[in-house]
């Protein structure tokens, strides 16, 4: 009988390629799991803003920055490992988690945290994609080489998480008596919504999530409407 159809070398070569792939997947899983733990912890802490008066934010921020430092560490490990392979080959494994990690950082910065030497922490600050990259110490929006980075899409998706969270905060701030915060959130969310309107979106996940931003706007507008109706808007904000 003639030799087999398949040269044994073909098998060996494929097997070693697939084995390598399995190994990478495993190491990625480990890092991503650790990242996930820190994100969940940070998100949990951050959800306390809904019951915390603004005056007590600094104490909360100090706590939140602990898991965020760990997030940064794990993203660093991820970056190191992932940069050994074509970026988009495994990107689907972590993209969602990286978005969540960015979201925690964006929210922390918005309520006054993540201060750096060049940009002090203040309420209402939206970190840019570049600033997010600086915080995680990874490149952003890479085009000229194939390595780990934070993509434009990941950042934009994280921004939709931020507007969602802030639309909840607007309600709770009013409950805590902080009507000015609700007004500021309203202005911010509207600006962001106007920004998203500039994008030409296709029918993909980004489109879907950006579509939901208008509901965040509506939620916040409802709050402002209620306040306006009852003349509860702080005067100095009105003049702007």
């Amino acid at each position, binding site marked *: *009988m*003639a*030799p*087999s*159809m*398949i*040269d044994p*070398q*073909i*098998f060996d*070569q*494929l*097997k070693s*390629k*697939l*084995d390598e*792939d*399995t190994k990478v997947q495993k190491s990625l899983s480990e890092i991503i799991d650790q990242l996930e733990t820190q994100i969940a912890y940070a998100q949990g802490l951050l959800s306390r803003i809904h019951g915390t008066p603004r005056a007590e934010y600094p104490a909360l921020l100090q706590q939140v920055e602990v898991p965020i430092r760990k997030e940064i560490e794990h993203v660093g490990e991820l970056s190191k490992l992932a940069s050994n392979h*074509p*970026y*988009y*080959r495994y*990107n689907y494994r972590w993209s969602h988690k990286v978005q969540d990690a960015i979201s925690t950082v964006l929210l922390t910065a918005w309520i006054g945290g993540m201060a750096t030497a060049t940009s002090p922490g203040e309420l209402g600050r*939206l970190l*840019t*994609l570049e600033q997010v990259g600086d915080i995680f110490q990874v490149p952003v*929006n*890479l*085009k000229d*080489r*194939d390595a780990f980075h934070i993509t*434009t*899409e990941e950042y*934009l998706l994280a921004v939709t998480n931020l507007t969602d969270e802030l639309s909840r905060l607007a309600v709770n701030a009013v409950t805590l008596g902080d009507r000015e915060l609700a007004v500021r959130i309203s202005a911010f969310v*509207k*600006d*962001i*919504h*106007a*920004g*998203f*309107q*500039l*994008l*030409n*979106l*296709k029918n993909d996940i*980004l489109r879907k999530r950006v579509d939901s931003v*208008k509901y965040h*706007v*509506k939620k916040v507008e409802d709050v402002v409407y209620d306040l306006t109706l009852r003349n509860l808007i702080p005067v100095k904000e009105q003049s702007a």
Partner: protein
Amino acid sequence: MSGLKRDHQGNEKQKPHEGARKTVPVVRNEYTPMFEQFRNELDHHHERREKIVKASRDITALSKKIIFALQRVRKIQQDLPNDIKKDMEARLDQISKLLASIARETQGINRYRYSNNLSCMEELVEALTFAHYLRTQSLVSYDELSAEIESLAQRGATPEDDAVVKAQPDANMPEITPSESSQATAGTVEDPVVSITVQDYIYGVFDLTGEMMRFATTSTALTRSLATADGDDASARPRTILQDMQDLRSFVEMLPQSKGRSWTQKLQVLRQSVRKVELIGYGMVVRGGERAKGWVPDAEVDADPDE
């Protein structure tokens, strides 16, 4: 500000999109420049993707046509029949133009970025592995096939043979290619190529078994014997397409298994194909196939080999 996208009938949502934005003055705020930059970024991405999707669809269709042509082959032989060879060459020429037209979009980081939009590569692998099998009764290796496809893309980028371009309906793509490639060759820069991934190769091989099954069915029905390259001469047991399919099945099953959905599905289909060919082989033995009428199987031979 939230009612821009659709009207009550749900139509007219795309045209005003662009138009309205240009005429209605955009209220600028501190984030406007940032979003405008993102818009450019995303537009580029969408353009690239659309270009790839279009080419991919055409490459898939052409690959399928090659496969149809190959299914008209009746036996495994070094030289494919002339008309089929010609047909295949013509389509490969078109494919090479298309590949060259998207080569720039699939370089470096973008190769895997658009993997999902490049499903044509799997189809192309299927067609080329099938052609290789029909010629040599063997499986082409990943490296050989990569080289073959890369040289296809390079061939498409050389401006000399423009003759085939007109066969392609989407004239907008080749229109850019010649100028780009002549620049590239002038500057002695290697023309970029489209590479296949290991996944393209493996999934293409999965699909190859379906084609082998079809080929085994028709060729057996018409020639009254299982296809083999060993000819009539030789050994008592020539290696037939049935053994090849069984080999392929164990080959794939011995590889590290992926838990992905398409892997499981394709493996399932592969198993079915192999079983179908096994039944054909069984039918040939039991019902005699090419044997003379009145032939009776000698039951003793298999039952008691030692005596």
